[in-house]
């Protein structure tokens, strides 16, 4: 029965972080299901098509930054503080380029796909505008939020490697969707 006890221990150790991730996901889902958001999905056809790519790439861009910073800290290549250190600045700049660049790419790709399938689609400029606004806002928040949390956990003697995955998914879900809502509102007013 040792196996059953081991399974129970793994369960207890993993549950808290999954519950945090569940809470973040449900919050994001509630924003997605809200009236303003569903109205946005109807007004800008193509947003549902790009939604999974938009949500999923967050984890990859900022998770990679987190993993890089964490390795850098462990190897003593960077210090756990905000500074104009060349490596840190490079890593941050590259994450901005990746995060904002891929958002715009997703908008163009979705628009192109809808054209090829001759489906109803929002205008290219609308989809790019929405992805640009939400991409810029999520990049700022996630990059600086991620660095603050990784530095703080390192200073407190926690291993950032165990925290990055769940932190990125949770922050990414929450801010990704909230800023998507903001972007839809902004672009809706402008166009």
């Amino acid at each position, binding site marked *: 029965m040792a*196996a*059953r006890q*081991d*399974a*129970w221990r*793994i*369960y207890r150790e*993993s*549950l808290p*972080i*999954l*519950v945090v*991730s*569940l809470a973040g*996901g*449900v919050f994001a*889902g*509630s924003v*997605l*299901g*809200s*009236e303003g*958001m*569903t109205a946005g999905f109807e007004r800008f*056809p193509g947003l*549902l*098509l*790009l*939604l*999974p*790519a938009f*949500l*999923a*790439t967050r*984890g990859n*861009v900022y998770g*990679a930054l987190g*993993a*890089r910073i964490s*390795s*850098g800290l462990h*190897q003593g290549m960077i210090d756990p503080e905000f500074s104009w250190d*060349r*490596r840190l600045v*490079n*890593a941050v*700049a*590259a*994450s901005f*380029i*990746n995060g904002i*660049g*891929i958002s715009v*790419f997703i908008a163009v*790709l*979705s628009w192109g*796909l809808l054209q090829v399938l001759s489906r109803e689609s929002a205008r290219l400029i609308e989809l790019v505008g929405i992805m640009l606004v939400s991409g810029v806002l999520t990049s700022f928040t996630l990059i600086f939020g991620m660095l603050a949390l990784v530095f703080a956990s390192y200073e407190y003697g926690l291993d950032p490697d165990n925290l990055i995955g769940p932190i990125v*998914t949770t922050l990414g*879900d929450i801010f990704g*969707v909230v800023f998507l809502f903001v972007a839809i509102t902004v672009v809706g007013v402008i166009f």
Partner: protein
Amino acid sequence: MGATDPDESVNTWSVRSIVATMFPILIALSILEMGSGYVLEELEATYLANPTLLVLVPVMIGMGGNLGAILSSRLSTRLHLGLLEFDPRDEVLWTNVLAILGLAATIFTALGIVAWLVGQFIAEPMALVDLMVISVVSGMVLAGLAIVLSVLATYVSYKQGLDPDDTTIPVVTNVCDILGVIVLSGVAIVVLN
């Protein structure tokens, strides 16, 4: 990333090198993600008529990957330590699988209940039974897929001499991300019709 040579380490920390490594991967992933976006777009009418289903979407996108990441990193570590064998009778393997299934059952039951509660406030409420069936069935299917993928990916990267830590987790989380919405949509269609 384990560069120790000073010149090399400065180089791998250049903006150009980081973007050149990451951007092609991001483009490939975005293209694959269009598969699950297409399913969402295709079922637009169903999702917009039942906005409560949208509450499930972010969790379905993320949770399979979370479960797969937990299992993969545990399997990789035990493999490195020589505590795991790829044998259908291996006890460590089944212990971990059992724990993942228990976690999935807990999380997706909670998701069904919480989504139902949220639905009471934000939109057209859905029947609790429908939501529970959709959440738990698609969640357990997803957990099963995450388990199979984690074991397979850990096994393949081990056989190929790759470090599972660098290969298994990204593959498993991204494939689960893509499958999440597809599984959810499939189950939702069956339950609602």
